[in-house]
């Protein structure tokens, strides 16, 4: 089975990154234009402030810039950039003693919809469930986690997710399905 980032269909971002790796300095702007919008959305949702998300975007792009010489020909740049962004996000939250919450309490608390008021007991149950989900996501293989986050957390369609990751819709669906099954299996086991 093809790895998530070892793709048959290459994206414009991958082509630009390949040119950049070979020494075409002007290609970095193309890489930025292709992947920054996705990274911005990803980081904005998971950062406490807009300033932090912009800083993290800049740091992610600079890591890509510094690592251009180590970019493997034929690999995909977007999954790599997501991994860097997530790593930097974890670092940022570690300093603030707050884990990056891919899933928020409001997402899992049935009585906590926007503007709703929940009992302390319901909030406590939701918070424990939220912690369990985030822990399971952390332990999940990277390919499944990215697929889950793009579909469930970022709200991307399977076509959009496949395009961002440079893979097939089938592959995205399969990885997301495995993530859902892993969450369902583990959460059901805890019940």
């Amino acid at each position, binding site marked *: 089975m093809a*790895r*998530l*980032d*070892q793709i048959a269909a290459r994206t414009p971002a991958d082509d630009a990154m390949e040119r*950049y*790796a*070979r*020494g075409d*300095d002007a290609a*970095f*702007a193309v890489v*930025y*234009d292709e992947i*920054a919008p996705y990274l*911005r959305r990803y980081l904005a949702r998971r950062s406490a402030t807009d300033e932090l998300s*912009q800083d*993290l*975007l*800049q*740091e992610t*792009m*600079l*890591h890509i*810039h*510094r*690592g*251009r*010489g*180590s*970019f*493997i020909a*034929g*690999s*995909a*740049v977007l*999954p*790599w950039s997501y*991994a*860097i962004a*997530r*790593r*930097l996000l974890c*670092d*940022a939250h570690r*300093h603030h003693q707050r884990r990056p919450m891919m899933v928020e309490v409001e997402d899992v608390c049935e009585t906590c919809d926007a503007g709703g008021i929940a009992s302390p007991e319901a909030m406590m149950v939701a918070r424990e469930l939220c912690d369990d989900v985030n822990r399971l996501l952390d332990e999940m*293989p*990277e390919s499944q986690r990215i697929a889950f986050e793009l579909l469930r957390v970022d709200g991307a369609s399977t076509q959009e997710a496949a395009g961002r990751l440079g893979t097939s819709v089938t592959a995205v669906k399969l990885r997301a399905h495995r993530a859902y099954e892993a969450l369902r299996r583990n959460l059901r086991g805890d019940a």
Partner: protein
Amino acid sequence: MNDELRARVLEAAAAEPAPDRAATRRREFLILAAGVLWALGVFWSAGGARLGPRPDALVLATFAGAVGVALIAFALGYARGGSMLGRRGLVLRWTVFGAPLAYMGWKILWSSTYDGMTEEWPDRPGFRCLGLSLRVGVGVFAAMMLLRRGRVAVRHVEQGAGIGVAAGMITASLVDLWCPVSHPEHLLIGHVLPALLFAAAGALLSRWVLAVRRGKRG
């Protein structure tokens, strides 16, 4: 806001030249070569290859097997397998424990086909080989860790362990030319333990040396 951020990022990148692929490969070659030269220098200063009392054919076979294991450990534990996300965690974990066991199994298997070659040497429990392996391997280990400094975005702990065991297996193949003992306990202490120690060191150091971190140059 978006245009301003874009301009800021592009300006920051332009102000900080980064080597392209060709320059990076030259740098990687030089650093790896330095690590290998260190290993060879320590090895030769310890006396170099000592073939006796083993038959030449046995030395050749065990050395070839050790080199084979080292190449596989390098491919699976250090190389990224064509992916910027590196090898899967399962592959790295199997390499960390499988490579030393494979080396030990190969060494015992071949040595057992010759009379007396797996007997215990009471005055050689393995600590001399342990010391030599650590001195020989530290240069290779340091070089490989340096090449990945600040670049590992996922599974940095497993990657560190993989790098360590790869360095350990490269070391074991060299020390195999020096050490005539194939007793299992000796092999564990003198040849397998160094690889596992390098693996542990790689795992422990991974967060500060290998992992992508904020404010840290990759």
